[in-house]
Structure formats: C-alpha cells, structure tokens
C-alpha cells in the first residue's frame, strides 16, 4: 500500500515542478470551480437588502422548528443529558459496551476542529461582532436539530453480520421512510445523503482542516513555509494515509486521547488572553449585542450578520448535517432517545462554549486595537490575537490547530467512508480507493487559498443538509413519540437511576 502512495507522490512531483508555483497553479485551477459550485448551491435571494442563501434559511427554519416541536428540549433536556453522560443511568450489568460518554467524546472530537479557531475569525471578519451573537443562537437552536438526528441515528442503525454497527442519516432516511410506506423515496434519500457525505467529507472535514493547519504552522514558522503548502500537504496526507490505509491505528488512538485535553488547554489559553484584555471585555460584549441587531459595517446589515453567524455555526457544530449521528449511533442503549439527549451537549460544547471563547479573544483584541490582525483572517487572525498578549502563544495554538485538524480529518474520513460503503458495499478495494481520494484532498487543501476552500466546503456541507433536514421533518414525530414515552417512564420511576 505504501508503494502506491510513494508512486503517487513521485508522479505528482514529476508532473509539477517542485517550486513555489505549485500552490499558485493549483489555486488558479480550483478557484473558478469553487466559485461555480458555490453559486450553484448558494442560490441567493435578496431580502431586505441582504443576500440570503436559501440553504442557510433551510437550516435556520429547521433548527427553529425542531426547538419548538420538541418543546425546547435544548433547555429542558440539558440536566438529564449530563446525568446520562455521567453514567447515572448506565446498566451496571452490561459494562464494556460503548457508553454515552464515549459516544459523545468521539463525536465531539470530530466536531471540534479548526472551525472553532479559524471559522469564528472568518465569521467576525465578514459578519462583524454581531455575527457572534447569531453564532451562539445557532448553536443553541442546533442542539435541538442534533437531538433529533442522533436519536434517529441510534434507532435506525444497522447491526452488521460481523457484530459491528453502522448508523447515520443514510440508514435512518432509508429505513424511516420505508417504515412509513415510502420505500422508493427512502432509498432515494439514503443514496442522496450517502453521496453527499462522501463528497462533503472532502471539504469541511478535510481540505478546510488541512488548509488552516498549514496556515497556522506557517504563521508560527514566520512565513518560512510560504509556497510550500504542497510539502506540508503531502506530509499531512502521509500521516492520514498511515492511519486510515496503513492501519497504524495507534496514531489515531493517541490523537483521540490528546484532543479533549487540547480543547481544555485551548480554552484556558484563550481565557488568559481575554483576561489580559479584561478592560476591553465589556465593550466587546456590547459590540456583539449591538452588532447583532444593527449590523454596523456589515454587508446586508443585521441580516447579513445573522447569515454569517448561522453559516459558521453549522460549519463548526455540524447540526443539521447529520454527520455526528454516524458517530453517536455506536452507543449501546435500549433507549435511542437517551443518545439524543447526550448529543445536544455537542453544539453546546462546540459552539456555545469554545466558539464563544474564540470570538471573545478576537472581540477584545479588536476593541483594544481595531487593526490588530492586519489583513489576516481565519486561524491567522486568532493567532494574531494570541500573539498580541504573549509572543509564544501562537505555538501552543499551532499544536492545538494541528491536532484538532487531524482528529477531525480522521473522524470525517470515517463518516465519508460510511457513505461510500453504504453505496458500494464493504468491498476492500473500493474502500481503499475512497481513502486514497481522501488523502489526495488533504494535500490539496494546503495548496489552495482559504476563500475557494470555504466556497467548496460550504457548498458541499449544505448539499448534505438538504436531504437530511427534509428527512428530519418527516421523521420528527417518531422522535417526539419516543421522547414523550421515555420522559413518562422516567417520571414514573420505571427507568431507574443506578447511581445517585
């Protein structure tokens, strides 16, 4: 297998002269393609002077609907979610199975990615401070969407003949509609989603991650890696290759174990930066609220800020994309709805906690010095905010960024692969082909500018949302029934707490 990889690298190196021009060449090819895809998927309507992509409206309406339809489960279910994660309701007689904590932790490390560091900076650059407000609102509403999709993910998962489990939107769309007598439509939706996720995995969970990891490495290296995106890309791709094709699972295991601590460290460092800027904090918070409703200096005003906030929130917490339900589906529980409760903590941790902290880092720095980052955006902007306080802070940030990117890429390679195997079966050659494509895109991500990458990634992400949310509307009554029945049994004491 390594031989294939080496020959691919050689081929690559031979066809394109190894010089700084490679990145430019690749960029000039991809930018127009990205623009075209972006225009197609982001069909925009003009509303009160703001250009509103229909697909963002699709996500916002979905999240608002599920929040009301589930009776504000995002607030009412929060305490129960924590009890479940703590293991208060775990049956002591079946230890050794995937616990709620494990399913959540795995999904969170797939979700917490560069979006939390770089995506927020993009939101603030384009949508102003007010975008942060809408980002938090989107995280809050996204908790309900996540609740619905993860409950369905567990309920309709498939137990494979070898004892492993497969779940996710392609399964619940197919089975859920079939159960309602719409077999043909179910098959179509499952297939539509599976195609969406395996192509989409190449954007949000791949190119965007490797791109921003490279940018941050380059920042720390003081620009020494300028034009060497192809080299960093190939190295990153080689490590991903070693894990997903070479079967060196230990790298992935170690990453999985470090990432949660890295997330905590990232938050700690970020809080230090905010504290060092404490005098700017009240004004920064004020800007978030006023910006949210006035949209000062933002194209499209308040609505423009709202659109950007929602767009970046979904990109970070994946609510409505359905991807996390693939990871959540592995949990072992007799009550699928319990994983729904647990999953609502995911947008909370990802968006309401981590993204908000990043936004405050940038916001407070902006108050102190409006031009602190120059032209930088994305992860470079967050890095500049860190550097303003202590000049070595970008270094731990680069380490965090690299690990976040890596764990997200590993998780998404799995999500994409599940889409692929859903379509083409478990055939090993087929799986290897997909994994090779995945690695190639990791490398490509480092050679292209952030703009086109965001265009492609956003477009692909939203392509996956369309079948998923459509399915969620149809299947939400099933989730509601499960939730009502579960809550009644919980209140009556039929469902016991094992720990106090």
């Amino acid at each position, binding site marked *: 297998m390594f031989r294939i990889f080496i020959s691919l690298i050689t081929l690559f190196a031979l066809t394109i002269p190894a010089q700084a021009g490679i990145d430019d060449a690749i960029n000039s090819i991809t930018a127009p393609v990205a623009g075209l895809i972006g225009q197609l998927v982001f069909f925009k309507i003009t509303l009160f002077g703001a250009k509103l992509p229909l697909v963002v409206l699709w996500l916002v309406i979905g999240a608002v609907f599920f929040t009301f339809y589930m009776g504000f489960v995002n607030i009412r279910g929060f305490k129960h979610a924590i009890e479940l994660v703590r293991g208060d309701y775990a049956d002591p007689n079946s230890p*050794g199975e995937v616990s709620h904590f*494990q399913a959540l932790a795995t999904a969170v490390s797939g979700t917490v990615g560069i979006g939390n560091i770089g995506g927020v900076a993009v939101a603030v650059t384009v949508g102003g401070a007010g975008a942060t407000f809408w980002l938090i609102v989107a995280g809050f509403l996204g908790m309900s969407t996540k609740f619905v999709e993860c409950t369905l993910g567990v309920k309709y998962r498939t137990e494979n003949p070898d004892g492993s489990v497969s779940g996710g939107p392609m399964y619940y769309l197919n089975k859920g509609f079939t159960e309602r007598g719409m077999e043909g439509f179910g098959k179509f939706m499952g297939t539509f989603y599976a195609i969406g996720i395996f192509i989409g995995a190449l954007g949000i969970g791949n190119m965007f991650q490797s791109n921003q990891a490279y940018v941050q490495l380059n920042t720390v290296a003081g620009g020494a890696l300028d034009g060497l995106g192809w080299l960093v890309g190939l190295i990153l791709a080689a490590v991903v290759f070693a894990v997903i094709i070479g079967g060196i699972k230990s790298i992935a295991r170690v990453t999985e174990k470090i990432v949660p601590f890295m997330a905590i460290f990232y938050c700690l460092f970020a809080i230090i930066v905010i504290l060092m800027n404490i005098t700017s904090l009240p004004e920064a918070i004020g800007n978030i609220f006023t910006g949210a409703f006035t949209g000062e200096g933002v194209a499209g005003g308040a609505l423009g800020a709202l659109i950007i906030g929602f767009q970046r929130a979904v990109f970070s917490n994946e609510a409505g994309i359905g991807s996390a339900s693939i990871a959540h589906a592995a949990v072992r529980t007799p009550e699928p709805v319990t994983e729904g409760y647990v999953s609502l903590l995911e947008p909370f941790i990802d968006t309401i906690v981590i993204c908000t902290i990043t936004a405050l880092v940038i916001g407070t720095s902006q108050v102190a010095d409006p031009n602190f980052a120059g032209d930088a955006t994305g992860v470079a902007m967050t890095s500049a905010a860190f550097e303003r306080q202590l000049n070595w802070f970008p270094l731990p940030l680069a380490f965090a960024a690299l690990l976040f990117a890596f764990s997200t890429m590993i*998780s998404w390679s799995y999500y994409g692969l599940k889409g692929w195997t859903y379509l083409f079966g478990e055939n090993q050659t087929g799986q290897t082909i997909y994994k090779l494509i995945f690695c190639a895109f990791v490398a490509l991500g480092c050679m292209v500018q952030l703009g086109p990458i965001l265009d492609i990634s956003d477009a692909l992400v939203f392509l996956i949302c369309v079948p998923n949310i459509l399915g969620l509307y149809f299947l939400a009554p099933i989730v509601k029934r499960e939730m009502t029945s579960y809550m009644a049994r919980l209140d009556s004491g039929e469902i016991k707490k094992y720990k106090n």
Partner: protein
Amino acid sequence: MPNTVLLAIDGSPGGERALQYAKERAKISGAKVVIAYVIEWSPYSFNTPEENAERHKRREQEIDKATSTIVNPASAALKSDDIDCETIVRHGPPAETLLKLANDNGVSQIIIGRRGQSGIKSLLFGSVAGNLIQTSPVPVVVVP
C-alpha cells in the same frame, strides 16, 4: 458468614499462584470459590469512531477469549478436586469491579496474586491488590 471466597485471576503467574492457594484452602475448608476475571475497561475513555462501531463485537471476543483461555482452565482445575466453583468475566475498573463482585456474592475473603510491579509502574497505574487492601470490607489475601 457463608463459606465463599472470591478468587481474582488475570492470566499472570501471580494469578496462577493465587489459584493454587485457593485450591488448597478450599480443599481443607470446603469453601465455594467464585473465580473472577476483570477485563480492564472504563466508560470514560476516548475512542475513534471505528473503535466504537466495533466495540460490541470486540466485547464479545474479549469475554470469549478470557473465558476459554483463563477462566475455564482455572475452573477445571478446581472442579477436578471437587471444589464447588462459579466463574464471572466482567468489564470494568479492576479493583472497583472486584469489590462489587465480592459484595454481590457475599464472599468472606478475596484472594489475589501479587503482580510484582515496580514502584514507578504501580505509582502510575496503581496496583489492583493495593487498592483492594485499602478498600475491601472483607479480608484480602495477596499471594506472593
């Protein structure tokens, strides 16, 4: 107090010595032996999505392997001497799980082999026998 002892084994030479000790004692006292094997596991670990998807399958395999290679031979060794015994294979944190099994089975004693880990290793990872001694409500025999 019922005449039942809990024998904790782990497939190591220490576990083998504990088995021999339990066998001799049970022969003399006519005690029933509950053989326990704990597969180290925590519900709070961090795994890859792939590991989680295969967890149920792996769990079955782990239990089968422990039962056939470690627990069943131990049980056969006791039964050959007409000692009444029962076997349990369980996932969990070792010391805590053994204590729970001791409580559930109302045993009067826990027998465990000494691992003989170095100071640093037991400092880092803790010693099952050490933890048991500190927390057990019944006497613990550590077989050297």
